[in-house]
């Protein structure tokens, strides 16, 4: 079993602490220092424990709506985002809890958003699918499959327009490449040589549909039509992924133009909370094999232990921290208040024009509805509660 479902302590084959570093294994460590390696492991453990906590919270109704877990794909959150600069931009789809944390949003702010509370990173208005913190370069969190792809091109456009040296990383799922927006965005990115990396988190399925059922070509074939180089990386190997994105980001920063990355990964949970882990579209065996052999956390853990760079005690300590941070996030979220009902109409418009009416429901609470002697139209619990 993977850490996801077991206490690391139980992991049998971990070599005892203090063993001599194994040179063969060291080769697989891509020159990271021990601290860096522990840091990446800690990051992924946090992502995993955080989402397990979210899963619990969802089960008891603390979180509502759609909730898409990234569990199994954490190698990409850490490997693709950690190499980026603080002012680089990330835009993505709705399976983005761990990506948000990787870009610097606190577990508290993310969990509070899942709970729909004021201290959430989107003030409780966005929820699981719409996490944002633009001060940290995290541009969401979008729910329409493929909808973030043109947005990513636009963010990169703005960087180029201002002559900045940041880059934009735009994540999407494998199924999103069948949206027309993919063609239009990649083509414009190529024509205008935008500093953007399009990353497909290729977990093999769009909901219940295997990519091979909706494409006759491999993912790598999808970007050549626009002259955009395609790369493939093993998203379950966080160290390889990190080094790969580190290098690619610098190339794009240096003017290499748009890039397309096919990152191979796997979703360990159902598509969303309502979807069983395995069933009609993928077998129990398939899922178990991946969970056994392809868990990015287990892979790194074992590699570090083999190399003698991680002891059982250290692992347990890191895992305990991750659990504690997740608990803390949940407690924080639970304590955070619901948005004030009086804010219902806030942030629909950035500019409430002094003239005219912007809100036509004529409810008592609606700004501007008072420009005339009170509309007689009423609606919503609001009207009811206040009328």
């Amino acid at each position, binding site marked *: 079993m993977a850490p996801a479902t077991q206490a690391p302590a139980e992991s049998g084959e971990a070599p005892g602490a203090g063993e001599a570093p194994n040179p063969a294994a060291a080769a697989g460590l891509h020159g990271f220092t021990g601290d860096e390696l522990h840091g990446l492991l800690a990051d992924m453990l946090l992502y995993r424990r955080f989402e397990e906590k979210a899963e619990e919270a969802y089960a008891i109704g603390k979180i509502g709506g759609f909730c898409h877990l990234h569990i199994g794909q954490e190698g990409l959150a850490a490997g693709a985002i950690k190499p980026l600069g603080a002012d680089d931009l990330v835009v993505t789809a709705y399976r983005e809890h761990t990506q948000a944390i990787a870009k610097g949003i606190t577990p508290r702010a993310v969990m509070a958003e899942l709970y729909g509370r004021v201290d959430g990173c989107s003030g*409780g208005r966005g929820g699981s699918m719409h996490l944002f913190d633009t001060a940290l370069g995290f541009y969401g969190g979008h729910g329409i499959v493929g909808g973030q792809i043109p947005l990513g091109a636009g963010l990169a456009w703005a960087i180029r327009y201002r002559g900045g040296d940041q880059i934009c990383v735009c994540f999407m799922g494998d199924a999103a490449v069948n949206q027309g927006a993919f063609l239009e965005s990649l083509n414009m990115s190529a024509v205008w040589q935008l500093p953007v990396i399009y990353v497909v988190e290729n977990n093999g399925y769009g909901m219940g549909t295997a990519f091979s059922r909706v494409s006759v070509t491999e993912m790598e074939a999808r970007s050549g039509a626009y002259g955009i180089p395609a790369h493939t990386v093993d998203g379950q190997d966080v160290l390889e992924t990190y080094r790969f994105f580190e290098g690619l980001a610098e190339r794009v920063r240096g003017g290499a133009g748009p890039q397309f990355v096919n990152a191979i990964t796997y979703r360990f949970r159902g598509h969303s909370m309502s979807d069983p882990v395995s069933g009609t579209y993928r077998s129990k065996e398939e899922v178990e094999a991946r969970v056994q052999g392809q868990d990015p956390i287990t892979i790194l853990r074992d590699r570090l232990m083999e190399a003698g760079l991680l002891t059982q005690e250290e692992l347990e300590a890191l895992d305990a921290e991750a659990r504690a941070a997740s608990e803390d996030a949940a407690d924080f979220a639970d304590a955070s208040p619901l948005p004030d009902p009086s804010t219902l109409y806030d942030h629909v418009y950035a500019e409430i024009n002094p003239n005219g009416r912007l809100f036509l429901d004529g409810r008592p609470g609606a700004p501007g509805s008072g420009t005339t002697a009170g509309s007689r139209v009423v609606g919503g619990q609001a009207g009811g509660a206040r009328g």
Partner: protein
Amino acid sequence: MAEITYREALNAAMCQEMDRDDSVFLLGEEVAEYDGAYKVSRGMLARYGDRRVVDSPISELGFAGLCVGAAMAGLRPICEFMTFNFSILALDQVINSAAKMLYMTNGQVPIPMVFRGPTGAALQLSAQHSQACETYYVHAPGVKLVTPATPADAKGLLAAAIRDDDPVAVMEGELLYNVRGEVPDEEYVIPLGVAEVKRPGDDVSIVTHGKMVHVALQAARALEREEIEAEVLDLRSLRPLDVDAVLKTVAKTNRVVYLEEGWPFAGVGAQIVSLIQDEAFDELDAPVLRVTQADVPMPYAKNLEQLAKPGVKAVVEACRKVLYLEAGTS
């Protein structure tokens, strides 16, 4: 007559029509192997095979257009949108191809197809997954639109939509799929353009459509306790629109509230108000009031979402107001 769910009723309608006409097929995301994202097409792949029950890529514009093309050639596609929110991507094919084709071709090319799926909000799905899309489908001539509220209406209206020779949007509701109700086992259709009084009453009319019919009925029950008899008129079909039924209930109660799930500006209710003031101006004892979603994108937070949605209390209040049981604010 058996009690089944709204979901099962839709499934029964599709099977009923696919059994009688080989030119009918179902295409959409997850409709086949997954039995539908909301399990509406459960068992249909096994029953009809992958020639007639087809999983599509996530390409709304493309597969909607493909279905329009198939309809141009005389097939009768049922194009399922996982939700109508996503159909905004396909709107060009709905409006510029499906709606306008027959006219541009001088009657040569009918588009006998159905666009179906849930519209409007469920629970905490946030702004991009909670939109009521009626206005986008009812504005352009050339498309028809029905909004079944009960299992019996779901089976009869979907069957009628599939048989209709024009493009018909059938807007369902995620929160309706589990609603149970008596549904005739035998084959039947409910003709488009026939509204239904879901509850008779003499004092005030609550006119509505789709999911909101249930909110209207709850409001009517609440009003009953105050000895106010509300009539609930379910339009069922927005285009064709049963104008006679609307005018009849206006003439009966002289006081009307229009309840809808969507936004107010250029909403369905605006058209109904325009129609009533135009054709029954002198019958009204009070202006028609509208109860709609708050004029804001749907928020995620549970309490804000509840505030944003049109609810029973608001309908009750609106009914009191048209009855002048409460001082109006103007």
